[in-house]
């Protein structure tokens, strides 16, 4: 009854004496953002860009109700299909990356066990809203992807994803003229609300801006220039 918090019973002999495993050795990054903003398209564009930098990588997708994104990546020919795992999120895209990231953590562990030498695991969040953020239990660094078609007022709305992400990607720049968005102003407002943290504009279809995102990843979590 007076057990102190340090006085856990050492009931499990021999093997439990091993210390808790060190923090995962592959870097883990998150890609989150609203439904349809281009998260999967960005990952598809990033895979070859990262491969060219010699990065050994794998992907975990958190689809909402299907395994569509995982299947799309597996069929893309960009990455070995067994390097893509799907974690079904029980209709809770934010829970599985924040309140309870354990299924994703375990999927990352499985990939690391299966591919020795793995350097990077990319977690794609299921499409969510502007409030979604990644738990630092799960990732070391994360990207939030919004798109110009979602409206140029998104940065002004200051959602936690826009404010707290390590890198904000503004995607679908090609659509700006078609949806009446003043792109330079949208980017300036994004810069203003993020207090100096980076913002990159991309067109995941043409690949514009994707090298900058790959550089940011390599620099932030892989310690490469």
């Amino acid at each position, binding site marked *: 009854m007076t057990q102190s918090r340090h006085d856990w019973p050492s009931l*499990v002999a021999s093997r*439990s004496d*091993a210390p808790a495993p060190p923090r995962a050795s592959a870097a883990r990054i998150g890609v989150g953002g609203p439904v349809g903003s281009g998260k999967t398209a960005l990952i598809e564009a990033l895979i070859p860009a990262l491969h060219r930098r010699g990065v050994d990588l794998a992907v975990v997708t958190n689809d909402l109700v299907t395994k569509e994104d995982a299947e799309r990546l597996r069929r893309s020919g960009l990455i070995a299909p067994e390097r893509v795992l799907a974690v*079904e999120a*029980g209709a809770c895209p934010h829970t599985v990356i924040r309140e*309870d990231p*354990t299924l994703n953590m375990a999927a990352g562990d499985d990939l690391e066990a299966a591919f020795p030498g793995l350097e990077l695991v990319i977690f794609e969040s299921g499409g969510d809203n502007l409030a979604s953020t990644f738990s630092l239990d799960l990732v070391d660094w994360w990207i939030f992807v919004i798109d110009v078609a979602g409206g140029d007022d998104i940065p002004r709305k200051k959602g936690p994803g826009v404010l707290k992400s390590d890198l904000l990607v503004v995607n679908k720049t090609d659509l700006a003229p078609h949806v009446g968005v003043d792109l330079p102003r949208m980017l300036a407002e994004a810069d203003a609300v993020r207090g100096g943290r980076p913002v990159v504009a991309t067109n995941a279809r043409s690949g514009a801006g994707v090298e900058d995102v790959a550089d940011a990843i390599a620099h932030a979590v892989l310690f490469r220039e």
Partner: protein
Amino acid sequence: MIGDLLAIWQADTAFPSGAFAFSNGLEGLAALERGLPADRLEVVIEGALRRRWATADRVALLGAYARAGDMDAVAVIDREVEATTLCEAFRTGSRRNGAGLLAAHARIGTPGAAALQALVRSGDTPGHLAVAQGVVWRGAGLERDGAVLASGYIVASGFATAAVRLGLVGAVAAQAVVRRLLPVVAELAATDPPERIESFAPLLDIAAARHARGELRLFSN
């Protein structure tokens, strides 16, 4: 008091273990029966408690709790769970949920978690949820009775939460169902467990098997 608190800590859905992603057959059943009113929901959960939790999960949990210091004995129980869980969707779900619980406890440094996780990762044992609970809850200092109550509560509240997300009942009505089932959990927890794992919940098995083939679904099983 610490024993009670430790059980509450582990029964709390705020403790991350991946459990939220599993409906344990409920989603499939709701699809089969075109809905599931609250009174029917209560019958289904009670059936799962009586014929699966009390006679299978609880038995594995108690076995693993008693032998938590002997990983070879734990692996034997784990393989028995694997062999007696007929429905593939439940086997996979239980292993993934077990891996989730182990991931959290290994990170926290709960005694036994890293050892069992290493064994699971090397493919030596499947790592079912009830077995993982037995090992890490013993390591975390839960008492035997508290561990049994936490596991039974998690089953009842897990079904109720899944029912809310499936739109079968409201969040408040679901807790009325949980309240009515608490005496069932308490009653079952006090009974002597069978010697070996037995499970007979064919309706949920069939529902989960059909669900596994479905394309559109919220839950993993």
